């Protein structure tokens, strides 16, 4: 099983002929992901190491049977790429591109949301289901197959925690980096719901950070809808109020959105919050073995 990407994934990479698209597209393929097509307008008919390139996503769907898209196009073309993928019938869209204008994402989000499309990102590391498929830039070698679902707003912090889990002999069902932008396609709640429904996932780790109120909303959702154990880690306890710490999403407004407030909201719902990435991994190990 696993979620979002798996053995049924038939991937088209939008921007496959660009340097990043090519590098990660081929890495994803080397991992075993079924990369069926690339799209670069004007380069239809070419191929990248045997992966056929088309001018439009529609052609990649019609002729290569793509059902999942990985977007590597520059920020100012990202919204267009998302619309193109969705209107071509792609059901799962994963957008790595950072610095996508927030208003464009807001309109795109409002557009695709009622259509039941799964969108991850933008400004995210992608999705990895160890042993099945890797779609994005997550270094797959850190992770092993297993039963821990991992969802995070951050890239490298996810690797850190994954690494700590691997050190303790724990594997993952799927690792989902939802991205740190003001508007992302999937929230913690969206991903939690998928993990809850996934038989492979036995325990969920949610890695949050300061800014917004997604972790607080997730806490309530977990209490009401998630039967599997959930553990959490929050980054940004030492962040000064009003400062942006890299992610546009991490602006604190007033008292709400602080790491402390998020921790309290989670703990109030019985969700344990580790103090360091190392501690989170230890907590997971204890819970799994219990």
């Amino acid at each position, binding site marked *: 099983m696993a979620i979002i990407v798996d053995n049924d994934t038939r991937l088209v990479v939008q921007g496959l002929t660009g340097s990043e698209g090519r590098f990660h597209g081929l890495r994803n393929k080397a991992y075993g992901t079924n990369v069926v097509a690339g799209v670069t307008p004007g380069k239809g008919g070419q191929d990248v190491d045997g992966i056929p390139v088309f001018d439009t996503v529609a052609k990649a769907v019609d002729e290569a049977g793509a059902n999942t898209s990985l977007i590597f196009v520059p920020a100012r073309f990202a919204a267009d790429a998302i619309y193109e993928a969705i209107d071509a019938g792609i059901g799962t869209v994963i957008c790595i591109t950072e610095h996508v*204008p927030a208003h464009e994402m807001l309109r795109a989000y409002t557009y695709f949301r009622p259509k039941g499309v799964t969108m991850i990102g933008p400004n995210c590391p992608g999705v990895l289901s160890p042993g099945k498929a890797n779609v994005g830039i997550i270094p797959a070698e850190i992770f092993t197959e297993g039963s821990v679902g991992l969802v995070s707003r951050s890239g490298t912090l996810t690797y850190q925690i994954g690494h700590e889990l691997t050190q303790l002999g724990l594997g993952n069902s799927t690792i989902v980096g939802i991205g740190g932008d003001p508007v992302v396609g999937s929230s913690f709640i969206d991903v939690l719901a998928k993990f809850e429904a996934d038989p492979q996932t036995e325990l969920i780790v949610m890695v949050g950070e300061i800014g917004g109120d997604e972790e607080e909303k997730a806490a309530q959702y977990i209490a009401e809808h998630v039967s599997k154990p959930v553990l959490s880690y929050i980054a940004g306890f*030492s962040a000064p109020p009003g400062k942006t710490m890299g992610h546009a999403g991490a602006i604190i407004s007033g008292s709400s959105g602080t*790491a402390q407030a998020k921790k309290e909201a989670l703990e109030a719902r019985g969700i344990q919050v580790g103090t360091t990435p190392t501690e989170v991994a230890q907590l997971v190990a204890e819970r799994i073995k219990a």
Partner: protein
Amino acid sequence: MDLYEYQGKELFKRVGIPVSNGRLAETPEEARTAAEEIGGAVVVKAQVLTGGRGKAGGVKLADDPADAEEKARNILGLDINGHIVRRLWIESASDIAKEYYLSIAFDRGAKQPLFMFTTQGGVEIEQVAEENPDALIRLHTDPLEGYQPWIARKLIYDAGVEDPSEQKQIAAIVEKLYRAFVEFDAMLCEINPLIVTPDGEVKALDSKFTVDDSALFRHPDVAEWRDTSAADPIEAFAREKGVTYVKLDGDVGICGNGAGLSMSTVDVVAHVGGKPANFCDLGGGGSAEGVVDALEVITRDPQVKSIFFNIFGGITRCDEVARGILEALERLDMSKYPIVVRLDGTNAEEGRRILQEAGKPNIYPEATMLEGAKRAVELAK
């Protein structure tokens, strides 16, 4: 990117929201000239990217140009919440009969624009929200529906504005503010206070305007307004170098790759009893050159006593980071800084090998994030 009042008002003017006639001044003499050109009583207003300037003495009425010059002299150089006043906005003084509040925020939580309006303006909106929540009208709208006239009507009638002329003027301003919000990719457009003069004229007496950094490429003129002098000098330098850097108050310099891991590193350093000097994110790339830039930024802070590199390679390659550190040791005067380095992920072994072979005495390799943090804290003592 936060805009100054006068910049936000420039955008208001572009969409047709009424504002007072005003001029920018950076010296007392310019303030006098501005007051002469404007004529009559003027208000001399400190331009700072922080609230509470009124209480801090940053806003003064001046009866004539000489008075404006004197008030400007008093205000220039003031420290308002750590922001030094370097610019003034001199504008025609307004008689105020009523003070309202109007804003549109990009609500990330709801993923919708959020309109807020109240007739209890002129104070911090948080205060209204707390003390008189029913007076604060909040309205989320659908970005694809766009602006529709009912939006203004709902705000106006729910807030209890009864004068038909006021209703009409405010409705027009709500529509124009939404246009500004969308056209200029705003994260926040706030008018506080939105005043009604004794003659019944409605206009924006202040502005708070934040533009999405990711959309600045579409607004090159606005992007040029960025005032690098206002930032902390080290932060300004970091921006110049393209390094994501936030100054904190401690002595352990920190450099991670990726915002989440960097933030977490700051937390862990604090957790083991240290005082982080900064947040610094190498970002996704992490070239050797980027590492040199980051170290140049971090060492500009005289409080820094030790430096902790916490790298988990994904796209970032650890060997490249190691090379960058060695490069910095050669190009910068780094001898007084103990540098703790923890490398994991892509090409980590190669990175560790490079550092080991270099045999630099002030480089301290550590195997884990936690151990690295502890060592860096120790070395800062």
